[in-house]
């Protein structure tokens, strides 16, 4: 209940700052992207709470300042008072913010704890950042979905043509946010991602999932998500990784479990035949 309310306020609070015409047409532009996992939803709500607290204090403090600017100016003949301390006031404005902060820290702590709980996944996928593409490998896991996609590998590269980037062709709908082979995951299942890199730092970021994790060469980090509805979700590399940093997007397609199983079965055969073909080619 409160959360729904918060989300509604959240959608309204930011645009209120700027009375601009166009916002109604595209709300997503003014705030965090629409969340599609529980964790992302917590982040969204937390941001709204913190933002509202900040706005209230901001308006309070600068309300006082602007009042003072209007009423206490020399040009209206205001004489300067000469007070320069007041212990009571100073103690109040030190202690009160402290308690406001504790009020913010409480939900934030809950957010951190749930965000970091990657235990008992249904599916585990290893994500590797390369200069400049993403590699995905479905690991042999212990969860519900073990066996469905085990050992499958995907390399995911930007599919926007160079002509569009250099302005020789009109830009497509998903300009810079499209790949040749997206990562495919099932809806409603806990997917754990193990993230690493092959060369330099990268960061795997999908805003709708609330997942952003640096990919560190030589180390494995983890994160997780459980997508609430089927769809295509887009993100980008979020850690500077060299000249093509802006050109290694992440696309995740979430599908119903059954479709996912079908996709995996089909793709496994394809991967296997490519592997055989490659092996034959090498043998020759």
């Amino acid at each position: 209940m409160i959360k729904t309310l918060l989300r509604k306020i959240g959608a309204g609070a930011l645009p209120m700052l700027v009375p601009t015409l166009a916002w109604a047409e595209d709300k997503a532009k003014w705030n965090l992207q629409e969340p599609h996992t529980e964790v992302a939803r917590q982040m969204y709500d937390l941001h709204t709470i913190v933002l509202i607290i900040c706005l209230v204090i901001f308006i309070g403090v600068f309300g006082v300042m602007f009042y003072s600017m209007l009423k206490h100016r020399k040009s209206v003949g205001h004489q300067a008072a000469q007070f320069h301390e007041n212990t009571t006031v100073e103690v109040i404005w030190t202690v009160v913010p402290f308690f406001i902060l504790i009020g913010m820290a409480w939900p934030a702590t809950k957010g951190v704890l749930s965000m970091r709980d990657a235990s008992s996944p249904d599916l585990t996928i290893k994500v590797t950042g390369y200069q400049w593409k993403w590699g995905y490998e479905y690991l042999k896991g212990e969860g519900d979905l073990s066996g469905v996609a085990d050992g499958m590998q995907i390399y995911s590269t930007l599919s926007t043509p160079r002509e569009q980037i250099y302005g020789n062709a009109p830009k497509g709908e998903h300009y810079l946010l499209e790949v040749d082979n997206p990562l495919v995951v099932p809806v409603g299942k806990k997917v754990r991602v193990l993230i690493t890199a092959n060369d330099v730092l990268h960061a795997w970021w999908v805003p709708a999932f609330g997942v952003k994790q640096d990919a560190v060469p030589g180390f494995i980090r983890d994160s997780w998500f459980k997508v609430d509805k089927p769809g295509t979700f887009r993100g980008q590399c979020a850690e500077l990784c060299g000249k093509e940093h802006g050109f290694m997007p992440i696309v995740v397609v979430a599908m119903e479990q059954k479709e996912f199983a079908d996709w995996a079965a089909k793709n496994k055969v394809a991967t296997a035949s490519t592997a055989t073909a490659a092996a034959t080619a090498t043998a020759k």
Partner: protein
Amino acid sequence: MSAVIGHDQDHDHGHGYHPGGLMRWVKTTNHKDIGTMYLWFSFVMFLVGGFMAMVIRAELFIPGLQVVNPEIFNQMTTLHGLIMVFGAIMPAFVGFANWLIPMQIGAPDMAFPRMNNWSFWLLPPAATLLVLSLFVPGGAPGVGWTLYPPLSIQQGMGMDLTIFAIHILGMSSIMGSINIVTTILNLRAPGMTLMKMPLFVWTWLITAYLLIAVMPVLAGAVTMLLTDRHFGTHFFNAAGGGDPVLFQHIFWFFGHPEVYIIAIPAFGVVSQVIPAFSRKPLFGYTSMVYAVASIAILSFLVWAHHMYTAGLPTTAQLYYMYATMLIAVPTGVKVFNWVATMWKGSLSFETPMLFAMGFLFLFTLGGFTGLVLAVTPVDIQLHDTYYVVAHFHYVMVAGALFSAFAGVYFWLPKWTGHMYDETLGKWHFWLSFIFFNMIFFVQHFLGLAGMPRRIPDYAPQFTDFNMISSIGAFGFGLSQLLFLYIVLKCIRSGEKAPQKPWEGADSLEWTHLPTPAPYHSFETPPVVK
């Protein structure tokens, strides 16, 4: 400020050896000459770094690659950051320190005049190395000002030039800081106890300690990069037993206090300007000093909030979140004190006051976005996006730079003996204020909606905000040429300034020194009651 008795200055006798022309500036040991050189150097660097910002904003005006290729784009973001932090903002406040500390504490000059000369003259070679790196094979480093390995290990020799530049800049800062600490602790006039010092002097005393503590840490970090690059060490290479994230810890152990090295002297300037134009003493002087000191101490304990996505343990994420949020308390105290200083004052809004209030308003906004970013789960979404870019430019530009402008307009009469053009000064403020918000306010939305920083090209849904931002940037850049014109006009043909042009100003440089300030500030120390 306290009343002073028995000052008896003779301003025109024996200044000793005075070379003329260029050699005057090369050999000078005078705190005012050196302060002037710091300020001009910083302005030149501000224009150089600003030009790089223009290149960045030109490329980001519309989607697609038009102006530069991605390599050059990354070099521009890197050098823009390094030049603005180390070349523009830091030297600007050292310039203020040189000019003002001896005058405000009743000293004749800085404690180590020769070292003062050397700490300035290290800067031009360092800046030259930085700019030169653009022209060597491989170009300047395209790694961001944070220089994270392993990407920085991959770079060409431009990276080595940058490392040496940072070494030299670090030496300069450390020497400057030792000089400032010694001057403040040893050369105060009789009666000028620590708790009677103007707040600007206090902020520099604390900043100087921060610099001495963290510049060697940065030097260590970049030296480790250097040996990883050329001498086969593996500090940051997992294959050799190292860890790339180690660099981030060391860098931000320097980097977070660095943020306050920039912000704290800005607090000091604003704490001089606001009481002067409120015609009322600073509210809560003691709590201001304690707030600055606690911000400085806390700044050593929060560095990994820059690394929430690097893979910290859960407990570390929680600790750094709590510690970071705690900084809001002393920062809040400062803002409340400034507003309380204005409350029931007799306010007037000359250019220095306008900039100080612009600082107060926008710095606080930047402080609030800092609080948003401190909250770990929210930061996971916002880390490395344009939201962060907006946040730190609110603190660095609307914070530090606006405060430096406030300081320049405030002390320009004392420095040059002439008044600046008030109308043009107000124009400069309003243009800067409006264009600044045009550039950076919309970047909050870009970051929220998911635009990563440090990308040369972006998806079309980010186009309109980027256009607004770029137009703002060109406007902001041009407005700064107006500032140059105002300063030159003031030096050449400004009206003659009285000893104390600001009614409410009360520190020693206004109450005891003529305008323009004499070459040697106080030859006989004033007695402060």
